[in-house]
């Protein structure tokens, strides 16, 4: 982000680099599906969200392979084919992101996303995902009743985000609208490290969804969840880099700057440690120490950016 005046309201557009955290050769496979709307209003809404995600992904760089299915294309066969194709191509160092938009249902046994023709259940989807060797997986199920899919989809290397906490929250959701926004709004990158993680995007969409119901004076009919509320969920999601922005990678490629990078990492670790001890540290002392560390970090970063 160059100009200070743009901070906070600019969109992350052409400079987006997606999912390139693990290695220069890792690929991120994305599948976005927008199911049946049932009514013209929902058809249009779901298709628009899917299209916006698609646009973001298309601008995300060469390491991203994306397929978006909406309208009549969003069939079970096409969805399965897309995932089966990835299963053949993906490697353990790769990442996989599946984003689901639409209406879902839950019969207390299994969850299904409503698609033209036969639906796809959570159990079926889990089986398809299990065949994909990508070492890090993220499923963002933004449909109604999506909470009902958590149990079937959960797996140690897989983060599952759902628009609803349970399968009984059956009303149409707005979470997807804000998930799309999170992928485009610089404000979602709350720690300003030029990476939007799954956790940051989740928190952004979760807060905006909550504010939507508060502002509209409506009873909230959806409560987003990360790994069904599993305590380890946020840790995994925080490590899942969704979007990278700007020049962060450039320094890493320059051997001359390795020492500065190491110093930066050290300073960041010291800052984290001090913040962890904040409650136990006298206010004045904390302020003095954090100020010094932050200033030093700023100087180091300035050197790195030269």
């Amino acid at each position, binding site marked *: *982000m160059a100009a*200070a*005046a743009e*901070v*906070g*309201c600019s969109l992350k557009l052409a400079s987006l680099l997606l999912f390139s955290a693990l290695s220069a050769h890792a690929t991120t496979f994305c599948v976005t599906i927008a199911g049946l709307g049932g009514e013209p209003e929902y058809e249009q809404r779901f298709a628009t969200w899917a299209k916006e995600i698609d646009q973001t992904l298309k601008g995300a760089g060469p390491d991203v392979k994306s397929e978006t299915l909406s309208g009549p294309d969003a069939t079970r066969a096409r969805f399965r084919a897309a995932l089966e194709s990835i299963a053949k191509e993906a490697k353990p160092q790769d990442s996989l992101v599946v984003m689901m938009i639409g209406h879902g249902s839950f019969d207390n046994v299994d969850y299904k996303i409503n698609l033209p023709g036969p639906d796809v259940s959570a159990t079926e989807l889990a089986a398809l995902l299990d065949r994909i060797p990508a070492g890090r997986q993220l499923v963002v199920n933004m449909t109604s009743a999506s909470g009902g899919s958590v149990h079937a989809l959960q797996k140690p290397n897989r983060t599952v985000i759902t628009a609803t906490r349970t399968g009984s929250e059956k009303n149409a959701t707005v979470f997807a609208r804000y998930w799309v926004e999170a992928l485009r709004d*610089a*404000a*979602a*990158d*709350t*720690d*300003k*490290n*030029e990476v939007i993680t799954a956790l940051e995007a989740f*928190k*952004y969409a979760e*807060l905006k969804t909550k504010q939507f119901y508060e*502002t*509209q*004076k409506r009873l909230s009919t959806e409560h987003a969840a990360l790994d069904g509320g599993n305590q380890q969920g946020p840790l995994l999601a925080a490590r899942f880099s969704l979007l990278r922005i700007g020049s962060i990678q450039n320094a890493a490629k320059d051997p001359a700057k390795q020492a500065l990078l190491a110093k930066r990492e050290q*300073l*960041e670790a010291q*800052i984290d440690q001090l*913040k962890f001890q904040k409650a136990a540290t006298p206010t004045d002392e904390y*302020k003095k120490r*954090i*100020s010094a*560390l*932050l*200033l030093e*970090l*700023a*100087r180091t*970063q*300035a050197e790195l*950016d030269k």
Partner: protein
Amino acid sequence: MRFVWIIAIAVPLFAQTAEECQKHEHYGRRSEARQCFEKLTGSANSATKAEGFWGLRQFKEANNAFRLAVATAPKNASYRVRWGRLLLDRFNAKDAADLFQEAVELDPKNAQAALGLALVASDGFDSKAVGMANKALELDPKLTEAQELLASLALEDNTPEKAIAEAEKALKMSPESFDGMAILGTIDLLRDKKSTPWFDAILKINPVYGEGYAIAGKFFVLNRRYVEGIEYYRKAIALSPDDSASRAQLGVNLMRLGEEKEGREQLMKCFDEGFRNALVTNSLTLMDSYKNFLTFKTENTIVKVHKKEADLIHPYVEAELKRAIATYEKKYKMKLPGPVQVEVYPDHEDFAVRTMGMPGLGALGVTFGNVVAMDSPSGRRPGTFHWASTLWHELSHVYVLSATKHRVPRWFTEGLAVHEETAAAPDWGDRLDPEAIRAIKEKKLLPIATLDRGFIRPTYPTQVVVSYFQAGRICDYIAKTWSYDKLLDMMHDFAQNTTTSEVVEKELGMKPEEFDKKFIAWLEAQTKSTVDGFDDWKKKIRLLTESAKSGPPDVVIRAGLLIRDVYPDYVETGSVYELLYDAYLAKGDKPNAMAQLEKYSAVGGRSSTLIKKLAALQEEAGKKKEAAASLERLNYIYPFDEELHRRLGGLWLDQGNTKGAVAEFSAVIASKPLDQATSHFNLARALKSDNRTEDAKEQLLLALEAAPGYKPAQHLLLEMSGK
């Protein structure tokens, strides 16, 4: 409990005894009355037994006994009437009304049943009360209580001459009509007469009858003379310490004036004594919630806001309150004797407790002396409530009530307050709405001399709203045709306890009837095109809305432009402005799209979404000053919007309005944003521009604490630290 002669409900042995009990009460012989009621409880007749328990204030037992009486004699209308009266006394108007209605069905000539229905209607300030009371009198011309009710209703309608005539009729029917005497005494007191014989006359008959003063208290409160109302309620309970209804009113009115400690004590006493109507319990619940409010005091303001939104809303409310006070001091040419207290409730139900039992008060704000209670914008959907307009409205009441010592008709203080809303800013205040159009068209506006009735006892559902509109336009008309100072002259006349008719004649030089004709002619001329075209406009906007869903933009634009100015004040959802904006935008014609929204905003459109779209178009067109002005309007409508403050802060900073930028970026922080780093950083930039270097550094550190690697903040830190 009112004194009621009980007839034909008990077996002969106890009928006389029941009447005797009531007589003892009537003459203030409490001990004898108690003994008498105790005897009644031993009656074999359930209805008589019920009367006994009721007299002893054993309400549950009385209720059970009446239930049994009705079950035993289901055709007896009088039992149902008496049971209904018990329920009415014990805060259950709905079931009481059902019982009175059942009694009427059993015995259509039952005057007491008709009276019961009149009392229920009267409690709810329903216009049917007068008709029902008259009906009761037709059925029983000797029913004094119905006549007393008519006197009371006439005084509620602010027609004291009529009230006097009705009260005198009651006294002819019964020389010991306490309520008749109390009404006459109250009118003397309201007219500031130095003495009145009527309360002494009551006390000569019943030395412990406090209810007469309670009637005075009620009418002083209805006339917004709360301090005096409180005094009369004190007198009432001094005479009748068991009169929990008066004590509850004392407590509530103390609370209204900010005397919370004693108010709470009085209400708690009612509660402890079993007097737990909605007014008492809700008021106590509200007072319990005060621990969640923060109070901010300055020399002339006290602002009370909920903790959860204090950081955000308090600066805006306080600044606007001070601006309004400064303006009104000049306009009304006076200073208030003390600070104004403004209470802002995020929960509308809490605010509603403040207006319970008060007819015709605003649904958004209410004024009690120097205390203003109002809804917080957070309690309503964005775009449905202009909080600043409400604040100015209520503050106008504070001045008018203070200047007139609360001797002012409802129509005038409301009318002037409505006038002030639009005087503060042309886009504030309410627009000409369909209800007002209909009232003008159907000639439903009231004569100025009886306009108060439209507030207190509306005869159709929207009459209160229409009366606000009419009163406001009357004040607009007077200010325009005569002068604003003429309104002040009228205000000072009202302070002398002068009637509307007298004030109109004195200040405007014409009879009220003549004024009505001239005003209506002026109003009709102003609204003619809208009123005449309204029905056609309704049809066409429906077609336009349909057309906008799928029709070509040019068709929408052509049709929209034809009807937009027929009813230019229509700025609700789906307005012509909005449809035209969409159509122009679909054509890629941003200048015209922007022009539609500019008109929408100027007329008073309040949709946050549309106004933010307008600001974006203005910014894109390089009209940053106008964009900032558009967004600033939203601060007065729905300030609970982080994006609004962020954008406005940026615009202010661009334009060198550093203080504005600091305020807006502070509001972002108060909104508890997800993006802490950017929010603190933006505030740091604004503070730096405002030469508050140390504060800026503080914010910068907060930004970096949230996001240590945040480069713009790092750059600024290095810059401010001299590298």
